[in-house]
């Protein structure tokens, strides 16, 4: 995916200013930056929730596809269909639905039943429910959430909800997975589990991961590359080692600590 000169304004506030960024196939890219830097705005632009005023986001579904698909004028559901899934900073699950149903909804774009075949049930809908249930159960195993599969999501702990939200995004079988602070508010053990899941998803399922994260230890550990946003502009990108010693990055973070 190639993001080029992306600018997004809310009235007088410039959330993103001419941000250019490449997301490479198969990598884990961390996006970091102080509060209000525009990290979430960037993800929202990719998933079609925000409409940037300028710039382009090109997604290349296949390795040999030079042309790509422009995302900036597409609806969120079209972008999902292209194979881009995400989680949110403040968990956005279907609270009254069970864990199973949340994950099955993640299969929406892969299923075919319509009102008629669904209402009739026998035949297509039943067959399809069984098939996709098997896919979802595999994800439930992977995320180690078997005991809670029938519980309404709203009754679960924060850490488990984060995990279910990851599962729902995974059920979509995305090419690119966008994770907005997947470890925020977790204890060390939960963070370790989550980091392991993200690495497995990336390595075993070959999913490209874009990860917003404040915990520098985690970022340095698991990401292949890091991009830094500050006041809506990208100030650096590179390997974790390069970023750690980048003068502008140190300044941005020190500035924040002094403020």
């Amino acid at each position, binding site marked *: 995916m190639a993001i080029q000169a992306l600018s997004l304004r809310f009235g007088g506030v410039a959330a993103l200013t001419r941000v250019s960024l490449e997301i490479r196939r198969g990598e884990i890219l961390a996006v970091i930056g102080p509060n209000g830097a525009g990290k979430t705005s960037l993800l929202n632009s990719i998933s079609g929730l925000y409409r940037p005023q300028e710039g382009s986001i090109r997604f290349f579904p296949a390795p040999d596809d030079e042309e790509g698909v422009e995302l900036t004028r597409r*609806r969120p559901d079209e972008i999902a269909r292209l194979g881009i899934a995400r989680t949110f900073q403040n968990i956005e699950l279907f609270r*009254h639905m069970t864990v199973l149903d949340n994950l099955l909804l993640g299969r*929406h774009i892969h299923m075919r039943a*319509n009102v008629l075949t669904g209402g009739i049930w026998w035949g297509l809908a039943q067959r399809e429910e069984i098939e996709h249930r098997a896919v979802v159960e595999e994800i439930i195993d992977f995320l180690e959430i078997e005991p809670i599969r029938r519980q309404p999501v709203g009754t679960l702990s924060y850490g488990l909800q984060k995990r279910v939200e990851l599962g729902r995004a995974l059920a979509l079988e995305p090419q690119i997975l966008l994770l907005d602070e997947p470890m925020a508010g977790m204890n060390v053990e939960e963070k370790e589990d989550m980091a392991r899941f993200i690495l497995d998803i990336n390595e075993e399922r070959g999913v490209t991961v874009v990860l917003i994260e404040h915990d520098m230890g985690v970022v340095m550990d698991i990401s292949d590359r890091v991009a830094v946003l500050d006041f809506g502009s990208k100030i650096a990108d590179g390997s974790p080692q390069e970023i750690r010693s980048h003068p502008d990055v140190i300044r941005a973070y020190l500035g924040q600590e002094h403020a």
Partner: protein
Amino acid sequence: MESGIFFESYRQDLTLRRTPAQKIRLALVLAFVLVFPFFADNYYLTLANQIGIAAIGAIGLNILTGFTGQISLGQGGFMAVGAYTAGLLATRWGLPILVTIPLACLTTAAVGAVFGIPSLRLKGLYLAIATLAAQEIILWVVTHWEAVTGGTDALVVPPATLFGLKLGGRGADFRWYWVILAFAIFTTLFAANLFRSRVGRALVAIRDHDIAAEVMGVNLFRYKLLAFATSSFFVGLAGALTAHYRTIVTWERFTIETSISYLAMIIIGGLGSVSGSIYGAAFITLLPAVLNNLGRAFRDVIPGIAGLIPQIQLGVFGGVIILFLIKEPEGIAKLWKDVKDYFRLWPFSY
């Protein structure tokens, strides 16, 4: 005590009634429903038929409001579309009910989808007002388009026949019982199936969190209109059945009061519950009848009570709605579930 139920396959896990207790209950209900009409007199048959039609309409409304979270005050108007379409097709062209009813359902679905367009922009109270506008517009058209609908005059529908069998005349209630029952069972199964498969799940997801649903690939535009259309299809069915069963269609039957009493049915029965829609329909249909009978029974004990019955009915109606909203927002369906849970653990239920 019932415990440790495991399912051998996903297929078994997906059935609507899985435990032995559920199967026995279903068999008992079916047995009652099949035997009832042979013992009931016309008064009770009429009540049963009214409950059947109301259940179909309530399931329709629940699809839209309870399951998809799109509040609608247009129920009366949509029923009117179904009733007038069926009634007019039968009177003008003499079409049989197996043609008029499906056409009425489809017409109502189309009208519902059109009036659902504002839901793409409006939510909650604002959508309620928009659907109220639908209600008023439809009734205005019905009462003013005299050339077609006959305006405020009653539309008299010829008695229906089905497979060469006359449904009207003596014993009409008994014969209609089976017709309405068949449609009610169809509606119930259809809705229950819908909500254990892809489209129904997407509708519930829209109710819970529309933006998250969209980001997971649900086309909000299409699915909201689909909710209006599917809901209206069944509401139109209730309207069409009313027209043929009553053999008379008047606009007064489809005012905002109708919309409100259907909302009461799904609130009392249980928002987002198919079986709850049926309980609510039965409750709201039986309430006035029960109060009437009570009033008559106490006529001699409490003088003047007969004249007060209409007021008492309104008071109880309002009181019950408030009671449910405060005490059990999930309705009778939830109460019934609690009872079942209690007995599931019996005798260790503490």
